């Protein structure tokens, strides 16, 4: 799936990913390819992204939003993590 992670300051991740793990208000979720459309609010935590090459990326974030669309794209809008 196409994944993009944006914060107000920067583009944190953009590209193909096989999975992304994040903590929503309802609990931890892992989004895989062709996930059904979903909109959720995120709690502060660390995103774990496995990109198309199988490499892991860890991105700490603050509060935010997760949006998965029917076109197999996922977008995460997150605040900078608080120090």
């Amino acid at each position, binding site marked *: 799936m196409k994944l993009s992670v944006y914060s*107000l*300051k920067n583009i944190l991740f953009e590209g193909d990913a096989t999975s992304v793990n994040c903590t929503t208000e*309802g609990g931890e979720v892992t989004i895989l390819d062709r996930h059904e*459309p979903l909109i959720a609010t995120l709690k502060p935590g660390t995103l774990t992204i496995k990109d198309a090459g199988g490499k892991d990326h860890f991105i700490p974030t603050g509060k935010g*939003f997760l949006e998965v669309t029917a076109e197999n794209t996922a977008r995460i*809008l997150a605040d*900078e993590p*608080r120090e």
Partner: protein
Amino acid sequence: MFQFVKQRIKGVQNISQITKAMELVAATKMRKSQEIALHSRPYAYGALDLLRTLAALEKSDQTPPLLAARPVVHTLILLITSDKGLAGSFNSNVIKKFEQHLNGLPGSPTSPGSRTSPDWASRFVFIAVGKKAQSYLEKQGYTLLQSFTRTGDFTAPEEVRPVAALLEALYAEKKIDRAVAFSTHFRTALAQETLARELLPISAASLTRTINEIVPEHGRFAELRSERHALSAKRHASPLIEPSPAEVLNAIASHLLHMELYHLFMEANASEHAARRMAMKNASENAGELVETLTLTYNKLRQAAITKEITEITAGAEALRQ
């Protein structure tokens, strides 16, 4: 006598060196703040997109408090200026715009003194951003609710959060029914414009305008203007929404307010540096002209002194010969 002029020439030259350095520094800072502002564009478009998706899905009457308009009794006025001076008319333009706005309001008292009268004052709440706005509002006798200073050359998102939180709280408690910001819009590196922008209630139209304005009209980065950020046209039937559409909508509304304020601050930063660059450029040019005229005076005086000495010597020689 001409030694004195020489000293002045030196002094002016020193000043022009300083202003030239400040010009270069301001130019670099302007570029940097533009870049920072552009980095936040994907986030801005994403958040706006999310708002639209949710607004289309959420059919109930429960609009989140931040998006709901109501009859205006109390208006919050946010003046966004810089902390430091030496930026030409940057700050006075914001203040001028604000005064024009006040004078244009129905029932506005004409004399500045009566502006502090209780019933007029109770209609407004003032927040100053930057030392210049703070000192202006205090001098005019307006009661400041709060002022935010020392945000530095580049505002960080965290520095905007307290402002956004304060606005949100005031709006939720119905202490204000509308918020207007007076700030500078960075049109191009050479032209800035002071605008009054509606912050609250949040509307998709004014948000879109602010976000589109991030890219300057001409010059560097202007090519990004034509690049379309296609807001996904296809509306997926009904996505799962956690925890609930209303709650997500509430959360996105406060994020949008934070984001819009952040953009206003960033734009004010970029405009401040641009204005300072222009002011310093003019100062350097003026100093150059001054050096030219002073050099001319210096040369004339020096020549006059030499001529005078020669006349004295020849006169002395003449006197001896006789």
